[in-house]
């Protein structure tokens, strides 16, 4: 069995998680990655969804951030004001997952508009929890499929803050959290450069070339001097992930 690029993204993200993490989980790849970690090497990982469910253990993936499954399997469920005040702003989350329609080389994200704000070409959903997830979680993992319309030179709108215009910008805003530390894509893993905070490819997924990665990015990409290859998905990782997706599809009648 070989992992699809999307599966490889999910698996690579899952590997970064530990039993000690408290994750603020978004729908889609983050939810799949967090639950894959929970069902494999990190059974004690704590998952929190912004709908208020604390320490939830879904047996299928939710389609929405507030599926009943999340509440049924949670330790407890708090109100949304409490979630944002005591839990997110409270600084109790170690890892927040974000994604977006667009990302720039300093891992700032746009999920608001393409084109001018007042007369948008494409109106995207907006920020939701992202602007504050980006600043309150200990660190941020971003999962996004690559493409030159997604990885862009300049964002039309900054919905959530990554590293601004480079190293030191977070500190200037008084932020003590680390911001985006890993960008896990369908082709590679990137990290901010320790000196400049510019995103740098540190690991290529099996079979992926530098050229393929560059083709999926709107700015000239930096590659680490010692470029690693992401270990291939293990049979167990793939089996557990696919089983999770099958269960999910059976439960919802649709994929999540």
């Amino acid at each position, binding site marked *: 069995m070989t992992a699809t690029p999307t599966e490889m993204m999910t698996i690579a993200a899952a590997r970064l998680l530990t039993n000690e993490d408290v994750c603020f989980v978004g729908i889609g790849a983050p939810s799949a990655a967090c639950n894959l970690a929970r069902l494999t090497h990190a059974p004690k990982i704590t998952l929190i969804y912004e709908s208020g469910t604390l320490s939830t253990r879904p047996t299928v993936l939710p389609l929405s951030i*507030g599926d009943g499954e999340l509440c049924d399997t949670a330790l407890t469920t708090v109100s949304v*004001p409490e979630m944002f005040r005591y839990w997110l702003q409270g600084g109790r989350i170690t890892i927040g997952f974000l994604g977006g329609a667009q990302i720039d080389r300093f891992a700032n994200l746009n999920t608001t508009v393409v084109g001018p704000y007042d007369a948008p070409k*494409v109106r995207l*959903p907006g*920020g939701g*929890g992202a602007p504050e997830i980006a*600043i309150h979680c200990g660190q941020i993992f971003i999962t996004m499929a690559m493409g030159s319309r997604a990885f862009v030179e300049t964002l039309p709108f900054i919905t959530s803050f990554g590293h601004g215009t480079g190293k030191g910008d977070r500190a200037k805003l008084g932020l003590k959290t680390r911001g985006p530390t890993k960008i896990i894509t369908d082709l590679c893993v990137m990290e901010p450069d320790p000196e400049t905070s510019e995103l740098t490819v540190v690991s290529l997924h099996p079979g992926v070339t530098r050229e393929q990665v560059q083709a999926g990015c709107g700015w000239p990409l930096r590659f680490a001097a010692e470029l690693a290859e992401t270990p291939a998905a293990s049979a167990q990782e793939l089996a557990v992930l696919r089983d999770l997706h099958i269960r999910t599809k059976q439960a919802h009648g*649709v994929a999540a």
Partner: protein
Amino acid sequence: MAEFVSLAQGIEAVLSDGCSVAMEGFTHLIPHAAGHEAIRQARKRLTLIRMTPDLVYDQMIGMGCAERLVFSWGGNPGVGSLHRFRDAVENGWPHKLEIEEHSHAAMANAYEAGAANLPFAVFRGYKGVDLPKVNPKIKSVTCPYTGEVLATVPAIRPDAAIIHALKADREGNVLLEGIVGVQKEAVLAAKRSLVTVEEIVEDFGPRNANAVILPAWTVTAIAHVPGGAYPSYAQGYYKRANDFYIAWDKIARERETFLAWIKANVLEKGPDAFAQHARPSRQAA
């Protein structure tokens, strides 16, 4: 003190043209039946307030009920776009829609401040992002102790709040359980409120001492609308109709299919149409 009414009476009582309304429910307990009734009564020039407009506001926006939308995330959860919302913002159809956009944290805090009868909320947010450049309501205060500058947002104090809840008892107290979102805050922040419920019971019976309950004297009107949250869900009653959320993407993508769906499923139906979605399963308290 809460009065028991029909859904039509309830919408008439709390919702007037030009007023502001928060129809809340965070994924769970979204008051869809009430939204349909507002469309049937052809309410106009509303300021619609909701963290996630969801299908309920996509439908109301598409039918021209809204003059202004206050929101923090305008997508179809797990699916994609809200096409009627996009068509209004991008193309001004059926007419121009003013938007006031926040983050979830800001809106959750703004509801909390409204319930607490404060004029504004303080939170740590919006750092380094563009939304404050396009939303003049986002301001700041300086902490008098540390000098830290914190974000502020005006309290949400809607004319009306409309929510769906699990149960009301005969006295008009209202019980919520599960993902409770900002519904309690929305009702307490509003001048008047309508609650649609799955069930009316004699009394709630044995329950957790800290159950989430809105006392009768904080609610204006209660309407019994079983299934009234569909395609959202009611914990312990019926599940979220994920397939309908996916189907909505196609229905709402084109104006014609949207209008045809509204005609057949809203304009030519009544609140009773929701009852088929209510399948009582277990007690929720």
